[in-house]
C-alpha cells in the first residue's frame, strides 16, 4: 500500500502466500507452516472431494433435484485451509456457501442438500459438529458468532485447550450493519472470534468497488483489531493464518479479521447468469490461480505423490459423487403436517389447533378419494 507510509519499506507483502499458483513454496516473515507429506496429501484430498460434491450438487440442481445451489467453486482452499485449522472444540458459523468447511467439520454432504432441495431449513445439529446452520440473511451470523465467543469467554474456555469461534461471510456482507456491529462487539469485549471474509470479488452482480474503497482487511484497524489478507486460493496460507488467528483468540488476544482473497469461479447460485455482468477474461485469469492445481503441482514436483495417488483420489471423488447423488434422490419429502413441527420448544395451543384442523382438511381428500 503506497499510501501507508507507516508500514515502511520492509513491510511484509500485502498478500500472505506460502504456495504460488505454480506450486512453489515461498516464505513469509510472519506466517509459516510445517506440513508432513501425509498432511499435504490430506489437504489435496479434501480439496478434490469438496469440489466433486459441489459439481454433483450443481448437476442435481440442473436436473431438478435441488431448487437452487450456491457453488463453492474456486473457494475450496479458503474453506479447507480455514476449516482444517479448527480444533474439535472450536465453533464455526457459516454463510450458505461453506460446503468445504462443513466437510472439515464432519457434516455429511447429503445433509447440506436438504435446504437446497427444499425438504428442510437446516438439516444438522450444530452442536454435534460445532458447525452452525447455514445463514441466508447476509451478515446476521457474525453477531451470533461474537455472542457465542462471549459465552466461551465467560465459560473460561481459554488457553491451549480453549475454544475459538470463527465466522464466515462474504465481501458483500461487509456492508451490512450487523457485520460492522459485530466488529464493534468483538473489539470492545475482546471476544475470541476470527472473522473469515471470503472476498470472492463479487456480491451477485456487484463487484467489490460497490462495497469498499479500501482493501477489506484494513477495515479491522479502524475497529481496533488486526486484519490480514491471505491468498484465498492457497490452502497452506489459509491454514497457517487461520491457525494463528484461532490460537491468538484462544489465548485471549481477541479478534482478528482474515480477508481470503479469492474468486467465485461459478455463478452466484444456479439461478444466476454472470454473463450479464462480468467478462470471461476475468475468469480465465483466475483459472490460472486454481486452488487445487497448485497443490497437485507441489505434490508432483516434490515427488510427494505419484499418479496412482491422484487416480485413487479421483476414483474416491467419483464414488463420493455417486453416493451423494444416490442419497439425495432417496431423500423423502417431509409429511405435510411437519409444517407444524418444531415451531416452538414448548407445547403451543395454536399449533395444536391448526395442526388438527389441517389434518382434518387433508383427511377430507382421502375419504373423497376412497368413496370414488
Amino acid at each position, binding site marked *: 500500500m503506497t499510501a501507508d507510509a507507516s508500514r515502511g519499506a520492509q513491510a511484509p507483502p500485502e498478500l500472505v502466500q506460502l504456495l504460488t499458483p505454480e506450486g512453489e513454496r515461498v516464505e513469509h516473515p510472519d506466517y509459516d507452516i510445517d506440513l508432513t507429506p501425509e498432511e499435504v496429501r490430506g489437504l489435496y484430498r479434501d480439496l478434490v472431494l469438496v469440489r466433486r460434491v459441489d459439481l454433483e450438487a450443481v448437476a442435481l440442481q440442473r436436473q431438478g433435484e435441488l431448487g437452487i445451489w450456491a457453488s463453492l467453486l474456486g473457494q475450496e482452499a479458503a474453506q479447507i485451509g480455514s476449516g482444517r485449522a479448527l480444533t474439535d472444540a472450536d465453533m464455526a458459523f457459516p454463510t450458505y456457501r461453506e460446503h468445504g468447511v462443513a466437510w472439515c467439520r464432519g457434516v455429511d454432504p447429503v445433509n447440506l442438500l436438504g435446504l*437446497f432441495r*427444499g425438504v428442510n431449513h437446516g438439516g444438522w445439529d450444530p452442536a454435534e459438529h460445532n458447525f452452525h446452520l447455514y445463514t441466508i440473511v447476509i451478515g446476521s451470523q457474525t453477531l451470533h458468532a461474537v455472542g457465542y465467543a462471549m459465552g466461551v469467554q465467560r465459560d473460561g474456555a481459554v488457553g491451549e485447550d480453549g475454544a475459538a469461534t470463527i465466522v464466515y461471510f462474504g465481501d458483500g456482507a461487509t456492508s*451490512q*450493519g450487523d457485520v460492522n456491529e459485530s466488529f464493534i462487539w468483538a473489539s470492545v469485549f475482546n471476544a475470541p472470534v476470527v472473522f473469515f471474509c471470503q472476498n470472492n470479488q463479487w456480491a451477485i*452482480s456487484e463487484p467489490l468497488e460497490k462495497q469498499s474503497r479500501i482493501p477489506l482487511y484494513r477495515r479491522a484497524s479502524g475497529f481496533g483489531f488486526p486484519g490480514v489478507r491471505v491468498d484465498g486460493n492457497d490452502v497452506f496460507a489459509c491454514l497457517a493464518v487461520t491457525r494463528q488467528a484461532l490460537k491468538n483468540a484462544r489465548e485471549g488476544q481477541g479478534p482478528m479479521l482474515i480477508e481470503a482473497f479469492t474468486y467465485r469461479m461459478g455463478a452466484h447460485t444456479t439461478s444466476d447468469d454472470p454473463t*450479464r455482468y462480468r467478462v470471461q477474461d476475468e475468469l480465465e485469469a483466475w483459472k490460472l490461480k486454481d486452488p487445487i492445481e497448485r497443490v497437485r503441482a507441489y505434490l508432483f514436483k516434490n515427488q510427494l505423490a505419484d499418479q496412482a495417488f491422484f487416480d485413487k483420489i479421483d476414483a474416491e471423488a467419483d464414488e463420493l459423487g455417486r453416493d451423494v447423488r444416490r442419497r439425495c434422490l432417496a431423500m423423502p419429502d417431509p409429511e405435510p403436517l411437519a409444517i407444524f413441527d418444531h415451531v416452538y420448544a414448548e407445547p403451543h395451543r395454536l399449533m395444536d389447533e391448526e395442526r388438527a384442523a389441517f389434518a382434518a382438511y387433508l383427511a377430507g381428500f382421502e375419504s373423497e378419494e376412497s368413496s370414488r
Partner: protein
Amino acid sequence: MTTLTLAKSLNEGMRKAMEDDPKVLVMGEDVGKLGGVFRVTDGLQKDFGEERVIDTPLAESGIIGTAIGLALRGYRPVCEIQFDGFVFPAADQIITQLAKMPLRSLGALKLPVVVRIPCGGGIGAVEHHSESPEAYFTHTAGLRVVACSNPVDAYTMIQQAIRCDDPVVFFEPKRRYWEKAEVDTSAADGWLPFDRARIVRPGTDVTLLAYGPMVKTCLEAAAAAEEDGRSLEVVDLRSLNPLDAATVTDSVRRTGRCLVVHEAPVFGGFGAELAARITEECFYSLEAPVLRVGGPSTPYPPSRLEEHYLPDLDRVLDAVDRAFAF
C-alpha cells in the same frame, strides 16, 4: 396495447416515471447491470445512467436510510428490496423514520419514497424468499401499503406510487412476474386511483377479498365455483392502507358472505382487520361469519411443503362450502 409480463409492466412504468421526472431514482442491490434478480429494472441503468439507477452496497438499512436523505433533498427514490425476507434489516428506517418524519415536521417534509418488495411464495425458493410481511407495514401509520396483482395494474400503480408524496410500500407478487396481459402504455391518466379496490369478477353469493398473488387464485376458484352454480365476487383490494372500505362493504352487503384470502399466516394477519371491520359495518347483512383463508401460523415451510402452506383453489372452495354451511 402491448403484451407485457407483470415484471415488464413494472419496468415500463418505472421507465415512464423516470422519463417524466428527472428526480426519480432507482436504487437497490443488483438493480444496475443485472437488472435485478427478477429483471424488473432491466435496461434502466443503461438508459438512465449510474447516477439515477444505483447499485447500492449490500445493506438494506442503508438503502432506505439514504433514500430518506435523497428524498429530503428533493429526489423520489424507488428502492428495491431484493426479497421480502430481506426487508427486515431496513425495518428500523422504515418504521421509525420513513413513516414518521413527515408528521414530526408538521407536514413541512414529504418523503416520496417507494419501497418495492417482491413478495409471497410459490417459486420453490429457500427460506426468507417467500414471505408475506404486509401486516407489519399495514400496522405502521404513515406508510401507504399497496399490492399489484396483474400487469395492467403493475404499470399504472407503480407510477402512481412514485408520484405519491407519501412513502409507499409496494408489494409485487413474485410468482406472477411472468404472467402476461395486454397493457395500454399510451394513456397517462384516467387510471383508477391506486388507493381504490377493484371488483375483478362480479358475483352474487360470496365476496372473496384478495390482493397480490391470491387474486389469480380467487379468480380460478370463482370459475370453478360457477360450475357448481355458485357466483363468487372477487375484489382485488390493491391498496391495504388505506383500505377502500366502501368497495368492500358494498360488495359484502350485496353477497352476504365473505372470505378473506392471503398467503400470510391467518393469526394476526391483515385478514383479521378485514374481518373485524366487515363485522362492525355489515353485521346485519352477513349470512355467515367472515372466514379467513391463509397460511398456517408457522414460518414459511421448506419449498417441498409450500403447496400445502399456500392457499389454493381447493382451500378457497372448502371455505366457500363452510360459508354456505352456516
